[in-house]
């Protein structure tokens, strides 16, 4: 029983990272209709910013998250404004290929700058946690989950309560109508992608805390972001939060299967995704649009 509770706790805590990775990806997909294959690269750029600030200036990693967000917002805004906006009306394959190309460029630029060594961020409270009898709640994943929830709440607030957020929602509902009522599409698209990139940056900061990063370490997260968004359902931040936590749980239980359960993490995740897509295409929490 204690084992089961421990697994559930670890799964939910691990879900925090997936929530952070998923919300930005889901926002870009839901609003811009772009499956952003460069998401993993953006994530890992956030990771390197956190690592750089932590090792050079000894800033607490969690305090670097706003820096990640701002830096990635600027990068994302520029990418969308300068590059991706030019193919928004092209068929979906083109957005796939374009974002894959961007991913290739970003990852290899990181390789040129930082090399392929593993980098890790280890504050002195890493590895410690709250203990309740035999159940342990490690600090780093706990604060990560808190940060991810905070990020999602902030994003939901921005989308539902601010002027630019309402504009983004309007675009998601009907692009042409949004343009007719005077929304500057180019700017709003760039802001949306920038927000998605900012979330990716925060996710990268969290990831640098739980694993050693290399320039190509972000690629699995692009795939996992897919799964998370599909699990929860496209179009709402809260659905992605549920999807991320569910994914964390599935992964924790998948890895606990005796034998070689841990190496099937991707297969389990994708099997689950295909199952959800085929039986419940709107996701666990989604509404069909």
């Amino acid at each position: 029983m204690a084992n089961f509770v421990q697994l559930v706790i670890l799964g939910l805590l691990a879900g925090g990272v997936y929530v952070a990775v998923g919300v930005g990806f889901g926002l870009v997909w839901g609003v811009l209709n772009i499956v952003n294959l460069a998401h993993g690269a953006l994530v890992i750029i956030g990771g390197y910013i956190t690592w750089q600030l932590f090792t050079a200036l000894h800033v607490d990693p969690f305090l670097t998250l706003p820096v990640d967000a701002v830096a990635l917002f600027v990068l994302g805004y520029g990418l969308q404004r300068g590059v991706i906006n030019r193919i928004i009306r092209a068929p979906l394959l083109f957005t796939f290929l374009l974002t894959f190309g961007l991913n290739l460029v970003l990852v290899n630029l990181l390789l040129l700058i930082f090399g392929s060594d593993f980098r890790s961020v280890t504050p002195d409270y890493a590895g410690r946690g709250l203990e309740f009898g035999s159940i342990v709640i490690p600090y780093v994943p706990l604060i990560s989950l808190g940060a991810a929830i905070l990020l999602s709440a902030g994003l939901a607030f921005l989308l539902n309560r601010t002027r630019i957020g309402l504009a983004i929602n309007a675009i998601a509902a009907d692009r042409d109508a949004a343009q007719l009522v005077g929304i500057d599409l180019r700017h709003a698209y760039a802001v949306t992608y920038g927000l998605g990139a900012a979330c990716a940056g925060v996710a990268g900061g969290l990831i640098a805390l739980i694993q050693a990063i290399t320039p190509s370490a972000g690629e699995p997260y692009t795939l996992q972001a897919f799964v998370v968004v599909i699990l929860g359902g496209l179009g709402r931040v809260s659905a992605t939060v549920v999807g991320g936590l569910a994914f964390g749980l599935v992964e924790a239980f998948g890895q606990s299967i005796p034998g070689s359960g841990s190496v099937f993490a991707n297969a389990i995740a994708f099997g689950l995704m295909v199952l959800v897509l085929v039986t419940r295409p709107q996701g666990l929490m989604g509404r069909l649009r």
Partner: protein
Amino acid sequence: MIATAASNRRWRRVFLIAGAILAAYALLAPLTSLDAAQSANVPLLADKYWFRITTYIAMFVVMATAWNIIGGITGYAAFGNVAFFGIGAYTTGMLIAKAKWPFLLALPLAPIIAAAFAALVGLPLLRLRGHYFAVASLGVGVAVGELVQNIDYGGQPVFGGASGLFLPILRVDNRGLFFFYLMSAAAGVSMAATWLVLRSQFGYGLIAIRENEDAASVLGVNTTAYKVAAFALAAALTGLAGGIFSQWNVFINQENVFPIEYNVQMILMALLGGTGTVFGPAVGAVLLQLLIQFLGGTLPISFDIPFVSADARPIVAQVILGLLLVVVVIFVPRGVIDFFGGRTRLSLSYLRRSLRETSL
């Protein structure tokens, strides 16, 4: 626009003739390396190194042409076709290495198993459309690779595990030439299959599905059967290439038969050459594969990229490839065949028009 029917036909003819001459040269030049030709003092037109590259190119011609059947003609953005390549490679590889079958008996099973697998996963997957199909097929591609590497039975890896699978070397004279012609034949088969599909009722049904699936269904096209058949055909051809690759390369593992970047490369090749056509994907495959090898420094003709050390070169090559991908997608969305094919001319106004049509 200066596209008239006459100039269309003329350009078509020019490019077909040029393509035929190039193909004939590529197919015949390797023969000069035979001992008989060498002893008769025929100049050496292609050495072993070039066969290896041209065999690779032919392999990508097969994959791009096969992808075109499901992605270009049917309009389903399959993003996990590498699964079929890997399945074909492992089918042939297992039969040869574990069951001791002869190669020519094991090879035909590669396309059969790949097509059967495609039909099996295609039935649920092809109900999905757009992004959802693309993502789900990518998931299948990743998952199959992982399963093949990790499945154990009684503590022993079934498919060779992480250390891969070694095949006995095929004993034929002129091995390089043998596999070059075998892979070229596979490329020929895939283009012939595309040609036949495009001229059949089946092909018209697929095009109808691409243009408007609901309308096609109303008109009496059995969309599920057509889509699954197209997916299985693409899988069979891709699996055939995989089967040949396994015996050619002698060693297969997850990394060399399930690489995710092949998914993108075959799509890019088809797009570069022009989707939905017979020769487009092949042209794209030749161009892109030559470029990749050139940038990677593996071609005999090469040059040093200024300011770049030898260590950093593969990385810089990837950056250039990525930038190229971005530029091609933005400026040439209809493929190079489109502006070389006589329909329009490559000019600044063509690029401007492409940009205007797709940008926000």
